[in-house]
């Protein structure tokens, strides 16, 4: 990364693992769980959050010296809501079936804690470029977890990835299914997402014991 100084590069790298928004900061869980039954929805959601967080961080950072601290939450909400309306309308125009799958969860990007959390914790105190990098880094960290969860849920739950059959045809019993493999319908139901995220946390903390918390 010759383009970025080491300090700036850390803004992107940290949220990917040791300061991940979902598994460490506990932000933005709702959408991570609800829409990850399909990999495609997870990827689109991650991109939408990246757009909103990256741009929103820049806007808030640009206005940080003129926002009165008492009404900052409302100002932040207005900025996010505007950006989310853009995302929602674009999705409705170009990917209508997908926007039906995501349903209210696009709207819920507004209340996604990652957005407010990063505005409060970073953009209000830092310059434009650094805020932008922070936004991109955090939404990447969020996206990685979403893609991992979506990958396992779609692969084990319906035997497809991005809608393409991977293990063969479950009805005509081709490929892996001819050996008696069955799709695990449990992975499709929403509570499975919680358990998958729980396991991701388990793996991550076993690899880095510094992250282990008290009960």
């Amino acid at each position, binding site marked *: 990364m010759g383009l970025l100084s080491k300090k700036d590069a850390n803004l992107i790298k940290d949220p990917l693992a040791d300061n991940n928004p979902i*598994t460490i900061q*506990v*932000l*933005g*869980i*709702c*959408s991570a*769980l*609800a829409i990850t039954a399909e990999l495609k929805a997870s990827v689109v959601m991650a991109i939408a959050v990246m757009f909103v967080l990256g741009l929103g961080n820049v806007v808030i950072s640009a206005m940080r010296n003129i926002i009165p601290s008492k009404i900052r*939450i*409302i100002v932040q*909400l*207005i900025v996010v*809501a*505007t950006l*989310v*309306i853009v995302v*929602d*309308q674009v999705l409705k125009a170009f990917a209508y079936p997908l926007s039906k799958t995501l*349903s*209210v969860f696009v*709207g*819920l990007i*507004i*209340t*996604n*804690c990652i*957005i*407010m959390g990063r505005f409060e914790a970073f953009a209000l105190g830092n310059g434009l470029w650094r805020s932008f990098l922070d936004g991109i880094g955090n939404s990447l960290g969020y996206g990685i977890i979403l893609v991992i969860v979506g990958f396992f849920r779609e692969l084990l739950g319906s035997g497809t990835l991005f809608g393409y059959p991977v293990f063969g045809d479950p009805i005509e019993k081709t490929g892996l299914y001819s050996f008696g493999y069955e799709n695990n319908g449990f992975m499709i*139901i*929403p*509570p*499975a*997402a*919680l*358990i998958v*995220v*729980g*396991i991701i*946390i*388990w*793996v*991550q*903390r*076993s690899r880095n*014991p510094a992250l*282990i*918390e*008290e*009960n």
Partner: protein
Amino acid sequence: MLEHIELFFRSIFIDNMVFAVFLGMCSYLAVSKKVATAVGLGAAVIFVLAVTVPLNWLLDRYLLQEGALSWLGPEYADYNLSFLSFILFIATIATMVQLVEIVVEKFSPSLYNSLGIFLPLIAVNCAILGGSLFMQSRQIETFGLAFNYGLSSGIGWFLAILAIAAIREKIRYSNVPAPLRGLGITFIITGLMGIGFQSFGGMLTGGDEAAEDAQETVQIEAPKEEKIETPTKEVTENNSEIDEKEISYNDVK
């Protein structure tokens, strides 16, 4: 009346905010370490949901929906402002949360201090906005039903956070694998509770299916009497056909 009762139990148990649609997870995970604070936040969520959902229902009905502006005059009937719903809903919510914050600070400073940052964060609790958005997308019919929906989803959220807080207080005494402690085990417990709550789905559909089965059996039994006559006809017809065939067969012979 029946639809009110159905909506009430449906939104508490079957469509529970936390276990069925995963709304409000951030504060659910972060404030559920002690029962006392969990109860305080839960009560605040019930109040804010019960107020904002009906208010947003009014906004949706008379301002945002397609054709909602027709009360202004027939020339406004074509307007569809529903793309503005995010921004208007969140404005209502932020205002109400500010109000709750002032009231709680005035009457219960200790609760105000224990909730800390999470009181203003109710404004960005997905459960609150999610309540209004689901109200919009499920097209709830009347003001009364909207109020009912807000109140009962709030109660559902309250129950969920109360249950997990009680479990987390006890889990301190058990030997959880070190990397799972805290967040990890909370996720997995919530998942298990979610699976448990899915069984409440049988509360409504199970009853309906039984009723449909009963109706079907009645319908099946009723035409039986008529059917007794029809097979005999068919048999005779068949016989005649067979006879004819035999005849033709014989003729060929």
